[in-house]
């Protein structure tokens, strides 16, 4: 494999991994607060169409990202109201949110699918990315750097801040958190809103980072990968980073292997295609060997909060 090809693969892998990573980080915080939101795919689609429409009408990519986040929050608030205020079943409501997001984005996107836009350009000046190593470090758009910074921010927030401690307390034992005076519902609303914003931005990655067009259902199931990744990473942000890039690598390498040529084709495409599943099995086995990790799920995950006093 030449250096050029290796660099090209890295760049493609980073692109493929970024929306999954952003969405999964949002879902991680949501789940840490004790809420399971299966509507990630739907919120991503809402973010994708919002981002597309804004960039198409204004040409401003950063405004598009911002409003995609806002659209994701709006979608997540439907879920929050139903599950947190009305104690509806979280699993069913999350699935409904995905169906809603799919239908809503298709409706909103009518008339936009034959329209091209431009991708968000690299954040740094092109001179920095001329050398191959420079390209790996500086060749990406702001969305990629945002996703990496957010891994650290989420880790720091959950581990090092008082607000993060409260959020985890709400997720681990909502009754205790409530009894010492924290607003369980308020914390969970905030967490779900954060998850919605992240899913919205993740959706905007599709028209802004990967392929400059709008197509119905263009997230094509990656929201579900994000949900699965949170479990895969046993609710740890840095493991999530590794997981997202592993999935991105496997998805991309499958295509590079199929496109053939050189040592890459030595591994059959079928094996590449099977690798996400093999990796999942290996990780599940590993975390079940380490007893503490398997019980790492927030204790109140997906349980509606009904104050006992």
């Amino acid at each position: 494999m030449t250096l050029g090809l290796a660099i090209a693969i890295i760049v493609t892998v980073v692109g493929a991994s970024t929306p999954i990573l952003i969405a999964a980080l949002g879902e991680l915080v949501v789940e840490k607060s004790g809420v399971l939101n299966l509507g990630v795919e739907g919120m991503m689609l809402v973010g994708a169409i919002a981002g597309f429409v804004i960039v198409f009408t204004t040409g401003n990519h950063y405004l598009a990202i911002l409003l995609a986040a806002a659209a994701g929050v709006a979608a997540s608030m439907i879920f929050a109201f139903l599950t947190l205020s009305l104690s509806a079943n979280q699993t069913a409501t999350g699935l409904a949110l995905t169906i809603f997001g799919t239908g809503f984005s298709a409706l909103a996107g009518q008339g936009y699918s034959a329209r091209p836009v431009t991708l968000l350009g690299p954040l740094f000046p092109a001179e920095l990315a001329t050398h191959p190593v420079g390209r790996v470090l500086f060749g990406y758009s702001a969305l990629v750097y945002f996703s990496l910074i957010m891994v650290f921010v989420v880790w720091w927030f959950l581990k090092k801040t008082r607000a993060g401690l409260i959020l985890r307390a709400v997720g681990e034992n909502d009754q205790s958190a409530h009894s010492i005076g924290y607003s369980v519902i308020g914390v969970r609303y905030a967490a779900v809103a954060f998850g919605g914003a992240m899913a919205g931005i993740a959706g905007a990655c599709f028209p802004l980072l990967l392929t400059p067009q709008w197509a119905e259902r263009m997230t094509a199931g990656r929201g579900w990968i994000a949900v699965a990744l949170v479990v895969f990473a046993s609710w740890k942000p840095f493991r999530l980073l590794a997981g997202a890039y592993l999935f991105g690598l496997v998805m991309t390498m499958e295509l590079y292997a199929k496109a053939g040529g050189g040592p890459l084709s030595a591994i059959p495409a079928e094996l590449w295609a099977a690798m996400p599943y093999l990796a999942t099995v290996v990780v599940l086995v590993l975390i079940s060997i380490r007893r503490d990790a398997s019980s790492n799920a927030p204790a109140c995950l997906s349980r509606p909060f009904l104050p006992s006093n």
Partner: protein
Amino acid sequence: MTLNRRNLLKIGGAAAALPLLGSKAFAQTEPLKVGFVLVGTINDNGWNYGHNQGRLYLEEQLGDAVETVYVENVPEGPDCERVLRELAQQGCKLIFATSFGFGDSVIKVAEQFPDIVFEHATGYMRSANVGTYNARFHEGRAVCGTVAGHMSKTGKAGYIGSFPIPEVVMGINAFVLAARKVNPDFTITPVYISTWNDPAKEADAARAMIDQGIDVIAQHTDGPAALQVAEERGIVGGFGQGADMSAFAPNAQLTSIIDNWGPHYAKTAQAVIDGTWESKDSWPGLAEGEVEIGAYGPTVPEDVVAAAEAIKQGQIDGSFNIFTGPINDHTGAEKVPAGVTLTDAELLSMDWYVEGVIPPA
């Protein structure tokens, strides 16, 4: 308003109430109700868009004699059966199912509704009330392959395929056969992505191929994602599939294959109205105008346009057929002797690659 599976039910309900208004008044001029089942959305700017254009042509041609409904985003599988049944129950007398994977469902539902005519696009299974129709896209692919053979600098093309079904394999073979008539060393690498529409994956597949040396790309999926990557990377180019996609790749689109289903839809509906419809396979191409070649891109030189047009004209007047031997398979063994032309049946069951295709692992 746009029809989808959800408000189809509402309209079905409204339609069911119509006879209450007095069925006699309607009996004289009752239009033929024609249903269309689409695997994606009419806005995909490709395959499904083409079928919808055909539907609009049908309405325009037959006017009040027909009434059409369509259902978008119908997955290939059990859902299709349900949608077909819904359309039959709400009074469609002619139903077009427009994706290869709908075949089994069409045959099954058609048995339950012997009075309704079904037509399945790109399929091969027929029965008393099920006909099949297709377009000879491979004729268009031969024109694209000719352009590719002239213009590619690396002599390597990539081909993003959905599934390795005969329709797709035929297109790959026609493309590379034509390119090799220009450049005998031309090769093509197919990458199957197991879906008709996942733009991000199509784009990544295009990137994977371009990174490994191809400079011309063709696709048999439903959207323009591969062309956009071709534009972004500045390679020689690619081809619109199903529709003109130059809006997405003004420099990279070398030309496009445009589906023109309208005449077939109008003819079939008229036959059903006249009571002359019979189950058969209809497979027109460039000569009948069902397949069209779009405008050539700004980077295609005049001599290449002339060469491509010659191939097009040869297929229209019948003097040229891309599947006339000698044709070797990808191992180099002779598959079709000189002077022999593959029959339609052989094309429709094509499961082998010609020389120049680097078969998927």
